[in-house]
């Protein structure tokens, strides 16, 4: 199904492009949001990624899955937004709009969502590489192979990096939000 859409896009069918993007836009936005932590910026990142995908589609290898490629583009743009020029824009927009980092208010969250929010807060303390592998593997549920493609590293690196990231994450969670793993400590 997806391959037929991809082939139509390669033949210049913009409607097929819209349909293809629609299938992946949510996960692209989610990844962008995890990286930048701001709804408006994540939206900008997602749209910029759509533009870049459109522009570079002729270079896309249709024998490869589309999702990791789209996510790798989204990731690069999101990370760039966290650099010099993007940071100024982000800082100014954060100041002008509101000073809240997250669009979701804690009091509106279910217990499960609060737990996830706490894990996210801790993940944000990790290095960028560790954050990326945790987002891909656990927040977005990508396979090792998909994560490797999205992060442009080998599957072996995904596994070793995940292992080290989880080790560091566990230490921080036990320190900051021990309730999330109390039963594991005893078991």
């Amino acid at each position, binding site marked *: 199904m997806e391959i037929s859409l991809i082939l139509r896009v390669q033949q210049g069918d913009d409607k097929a*492009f*819209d349909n293809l993007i*629609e299938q992946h*836009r*949510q996960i692209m*936005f*989610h990844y962008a*949001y995890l990286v930048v932590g701001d*709804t*408006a910026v*994540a*939206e900008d990142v997602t*749209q*910029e990624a*759509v*533009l870049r995908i*459109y522009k570079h589609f002729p270079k896309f290898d249709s024998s490869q899955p589309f999702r990791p490629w789209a996510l790798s583009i989204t990731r690069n743009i999101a*990370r760039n937004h*966290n*650099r010099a*020029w993007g*940071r*100024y824009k*982000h*800082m*100014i927009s954060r*100041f002008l709009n509101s*000073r809240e980092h997250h*669009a*979701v208010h804690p009091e509106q*969250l*279910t217990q*499960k*969502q609060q*737990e*996830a929010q706490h*894990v*996210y*807060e*801790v993940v*944000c*303390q990790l*290095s960028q590489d560790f*954050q990326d592998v*945790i987002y891909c593997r*656990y*927040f977005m549920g990508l396979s090792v192979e998909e994560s490797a493609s999205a992060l442009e590293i080998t599957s072996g690196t995904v596994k070793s990096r*995940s*292992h080290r990231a*989880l*080790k560091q*994450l*566990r*230490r*921080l969670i036990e320190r*900051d939000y021990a309730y*999330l*793993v109390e039963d*594991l400590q005893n*078991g």
Partner: protein
Amino acid sequence: MDDLFEKRIADIAKHFPYPPIPLKKTQTQFAFSRALIRPVATVLLIVGFIAVAVPDIRAAILEYFQIGNVMIYLDGLDPAGEPLRLDDVAGETDIETAQAMLKFEMLVPDERPDRVFVQNEQMVILVWTDGENIEKALYQNRGFDWGTLKGAVSNIVPTEVAGHYAVWLDTPHPVQFVYKDTVQDELTYFVYQNVLIWDAGNVTYRLESTLTMEEAVQYAESLYQ
């Protein structure tokens, strides 16, 4: 047990409360309209930069920037003031005790600090001296209830530390710490050194030193290795 932890994280993370995607426009239509809008946005940002560079306009447009729980005020610049007096700072301890007291895991540099201070279990200050003067001070602070740190500066350079949002301040400026709406007098001082601030989730770090921006960033990133 590691497998159980991994499964726990996977189970929890799938419940992350993402905000809804705001836009419903057709992708290509939207993408191309964005392409047309972009030059306009760029001009506005350039105006923003110019405005920030001119003191009068700068103060009118932006009163402050915020990074983590640090508020950086862009006006009210004082020319000089008293530097930090370490002997006035309460909560002196050693690095091992500091970690046990803190409510978060601190970054521990290889080079052992000469003096260590813990404030309200929410902030640790690691200080290196030449015997008399402060050579380097690393503040690590967690929690919105700790309060704000503010200073007036004339120049802010955005940068990053290990992928975390950061700013660089290289002009002398006053600093003030507030805890539960109370100004901490012993931590109200004038910093003459360069300052690197970065926000890593719920912990905000602030490094005072004579290092250049590149050196300071390199030093900060070494704390994560």
